[in-house]
């Protein structure tokens, strides 16, 4: 199981634990995201299961030392199945007073706190609104505080290297990482290897970072300030080759796999928007697969260029977040009306309006369902973990191409930026993707439909003798020519809805986890899978009969949804919004009495708040 754990030193007083939650916090320029990622990757290679939660401000470099400029990275690693980054924290690393102030409440009493004492200056304490120094006033007595003059020690480690002060201070995060590696018996090899690749052309930087990392590690080992170190055994996971992946990368790669398997070239028309832009970044790196990434002049051009590419025969995708989806609404309606394949990826963030760009929320569901003029149903699906974003991006392409319709894929900032181990799939592991392309013939009827799915024929420009026109105006059900005939419009309205409804025949049924039937069914959708699953798991361990029903297919819903809802005495729909999925369910299945648990704080659910709520309603 252990594959990459050379040089592991195991002190005698090492304690074995099943899981641990660590949070790194500091200024947005302190490199906390890099530190957290390095710790996560190293632990993944060691064989732990992992979930991460980067939490950062929307300002790129907020004023130094300010409370709102704090950037954090939380990671849970374990030898058990890990589905969330954890509620409360076993180790908090605070690089400055502002980080301590905003994150201390998450630290479990009695647990370890590492602080850089050099940053606890009068000025920084004032910026963090501390009246007195928490390191001196006894307010941290409930924690194991490890005070380290990290900045000075980093300077000392690098004094002979002739680096400027800024570069020296910038590497103090590696001192913290070195200490944490020691505490959790982790090898430094992966991170040193990372320096060597990342700074290939800057050997001084490689040397400096390596020095500081080791300095931190040996400092923790030598100075007898760490009473206990911890070991987390590798998790029992399916055999195979793994890598750490975040939801945005997984989404991008799912699109790549769909393009390769379907034989359609991939076109991505997109406009930068947080937190979706990383998909555009990722695909822009892989142009050698012949994919076309087009950074458009605005959100509308992002989707309309994709519609043009789809019309001309590409697998067309546009990526965005809430405000962008609003701008794309009219164009998605056009794609729906002319019945072209189109994938819209919406990485949800806190709304409304500009809202909370870097925070997570599930509040675009109703916009995805209904955010267009006229009767314009489209397929709506949602990914629920960082790694299954790969599968649902692939599925979105498959459904769009096979059913000739726009498909909206919802992910969210939490799974888009969060990382987890992914058992790597090959393109050949994925189901084949069909299409509706017609290559020859005469008297072409553009809206001739497949009898079963109702998907229309697709004649692509460049095909001789199949020239035809499509458009946003209502058209005759057979010829496709413009028609405003009343009964024809009625017929067309119904058949477009029926086409989407029939997708039910092509998607899997849904089944609850933990219990087939019981006292309470916890219903969720999309990115809350991990949080809800951890909470339901705990309820069952405590003896409650609670099931977890999680939706990835929302429009249409799986065929057997009502059967499943009926098997439980109570149903509670949990969402990171004011109650949107519950509206969709109520529209479809009025006979169920739905309880709700809603949260709109820009943060994921915690296990504690969920289990408390479940016990309350039981």
């Amino acid at each position, binding site marked *: *199981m252990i*594959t*990459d754990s050379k040089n592991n030193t195991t002190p005698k007083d090492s304690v074995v634990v099943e899981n641990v939650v660590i949070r790194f916090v500091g200024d947005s320029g302190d490199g906390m995201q890099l530190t957290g990622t390095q710790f996560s990757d190293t632990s*993944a*290679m060691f064989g732990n299961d992992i979930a991460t939660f980067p939490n950062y401000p929307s300002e790129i470099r907020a004023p130094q030392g300010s409370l709102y400029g704090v950037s954090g990275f939380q990671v849970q690693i374990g030898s058990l199945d890990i589905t969330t980054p954890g509620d409360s924290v076993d180790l908090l690393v605070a690089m400055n007073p502002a980080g301590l102030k905003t994150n201390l409440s998450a630290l479990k009493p009695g647990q370890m706190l590492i602080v850089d004492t050099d940053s606890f200056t009068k000025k920084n304490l004032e910026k963090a609104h501390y009246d007195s120094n928490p390191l001196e006033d006894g307010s941290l007595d409930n924690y194991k505080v490890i005070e380290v003059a990290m900045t000075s020690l980093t300077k000392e480690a690098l004094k002979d290297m002739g680096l400027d002060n800024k570069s020296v201070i910038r590497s103090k995060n590696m001192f913290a990482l070195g200490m944490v590696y020691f505490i959790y018996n982790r090898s430094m090899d992966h991170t040193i290897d990372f320096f060597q690749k990342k700074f290939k052309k800057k050997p001084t930087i490689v040397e400096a970072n390596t020095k500081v990392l080791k300095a931190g590690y040996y400092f923790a080992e030598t100075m007898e300030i760490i009473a206990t170190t911890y070991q987390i055994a590798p998790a029992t*996971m*399916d055999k*195979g080759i*793994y*890598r750490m992946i975040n939801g945005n990368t997984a989404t991008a790669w799912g699109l*790549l796999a769909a393009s*390769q398997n379907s034989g359609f070239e991939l*076109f991505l*028309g997109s406009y930068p928007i947080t937190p979706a832009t990383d998909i555009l970044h990722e695909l822009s790196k*892989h*142009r*050698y*697969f*012949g994919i*076309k990434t*087009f950074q*458009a*002049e*605005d959100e*509308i*051009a992002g989707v*309309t*260029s*994709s*519609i*043009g590419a*789809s*019309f*001309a*025969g*590409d697998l067309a995708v546009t990526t965005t977040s809430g405000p962008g989806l609003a701008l794309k609404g009219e*164009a998605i309606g*056009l794609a729906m009306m*002319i019945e072209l394949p189109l994938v819209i990826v919406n990485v949800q963030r806190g709304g409304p309006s500009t809202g909370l760009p870097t925070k997570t929320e599930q509040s675009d569901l109703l916009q995805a369902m209904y955010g267009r003029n006229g009767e314009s149903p489209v397929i709506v699906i949602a990914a629920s973990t960082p790694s299954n974003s790969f599968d649902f991006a692939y599925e979105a392409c498959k459904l769009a191409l096979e059913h000739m319709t726009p498909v909206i894929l919802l992910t969210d900032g939490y799974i888009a930026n969060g990382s987890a181990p992914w*058992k*790597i*799939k*090959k*393109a*050949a592991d994925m189901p084949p993707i069909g299409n509706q392309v017609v290559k020859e013939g005469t008297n072409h009827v553009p809206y001739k439909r497949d009898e079963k799915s109702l998907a229309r024929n697709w004649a692509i*420009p*460049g*095909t*001789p*003798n*199949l*020239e*035809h*026109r*499509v*458009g*946003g*105006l209502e058209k005759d059900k057979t010829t496709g*020519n*413009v028609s405003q005939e009343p009964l024809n419009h009625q017929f067309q309205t119904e058949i477009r809805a029926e086409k989407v409804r029939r997708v039910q025949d092509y998607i899997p049924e849904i089944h609850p986890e933990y219990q087939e039937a019981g006292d309470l069914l916890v219903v969720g959708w999309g990115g809350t899978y991990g949080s809800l699953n951890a909470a339901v798991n705990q309820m069952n361990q405590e003896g409650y009969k609670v099931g977890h029903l999680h939706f990835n297919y929302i429009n249409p819903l799986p065929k057997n949804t009502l059967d499943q809802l009926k098997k439980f005495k109570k149903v509670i729909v949990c969402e990171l919004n004011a109650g949107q999925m519950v509206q969709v369910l109520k529209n479809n299945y009025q006979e169920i009495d739905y309880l709700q648990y809603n949260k709109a704080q820009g943060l994921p659910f915690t296990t504690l708040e969920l289990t408390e709520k479940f016990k309350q309603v039981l």
Partner: protein
Amino acid sequence: MENTATKYTFKDYQSDQEVRWCPGCDDYVILRSIQKALPETGVKKENVVFISGIGCSSRFPYYMDTYGMHSIHGRAAAIATGAKLANPELSVWVASGDGDSMAIGGNHFIHVLRRNVDINYILFNNEIYGLTKGQFSPTSLLGQKTKTSPYGNTQPPFNPGELAIGSRARFFARLGGNVPKEMTQVFIEAEKFKGTSLVEILQNCVIFNDGCYTKYTDKAVKDEMQIHLEHGKPMIFGKERNKGLVLNGLKLEVVTLGENGITEADLLVHDAHEPDITLHAMLVRLEYPLATGVIRSVEEPTFGERERELVNRVTESSRFKSVDDLFFSGETYEVK
């Protein structure tokens, strides 16, 4: 793209749909001119795509027996960009009005020109909103009385040529709406040009803005009021071909041949291929005479060419032959 096997006629491009523009509309002339131009371009019929937005002129694709999309208001240029990037073999045409192109679709209009996407863009400029029945447009004149400016328009207009050149247009032509022969020739030239070919047609709206171009396009005054530019030819105009343009300081000036010792040799010679925009910008702004013909035609790599060059370059040096190579690259680990 060249096709020698089939020779099309204009009838091959007529769809079975009844044309529903108002009687006397210049759009009929434009439609017929395109249908006559396409057989001369050598493009296979199945490769021709017409994209439009919303407006009277945007009904255009329905009347062409080619691939076509009547889309949503203002977005034709962006849709055309996607279609051309998806399949560079296509001959992509945009049919769009002044409101569609320069009001609701202004952003796409300037960016398609900036990028130099290899499409042909016919701008039907009638200085009015026709389909919504007579509101002022971004090219309506100051003081113009319309349904939304009953006391006169207070919004100064765009000059489409000026906007286009400011957006780095490489090809700009302007013609009256009543000159089918010239139109056919310019459309052929536009199709052959590699890059965004913008052709502005001064199109009379018989219902809501009738006569808006009469002072330039009426047969009786046309030769006096227009200077039809041809690359490499001196800038001469007038019924008697006795007037011309010279540069006086930083301004264009009309001179009469034979007066003050002026001869043809003193006149400016039209150079459509000059990369510097100065003279072209002066020509598009000229109010007397109105410059028509191909005013600017400067080839440089198209967006698609730049994109394909990039893809070829990175593909040659890539170590990934399939997506699996990418998925298994970098930091992976095995659980045994």
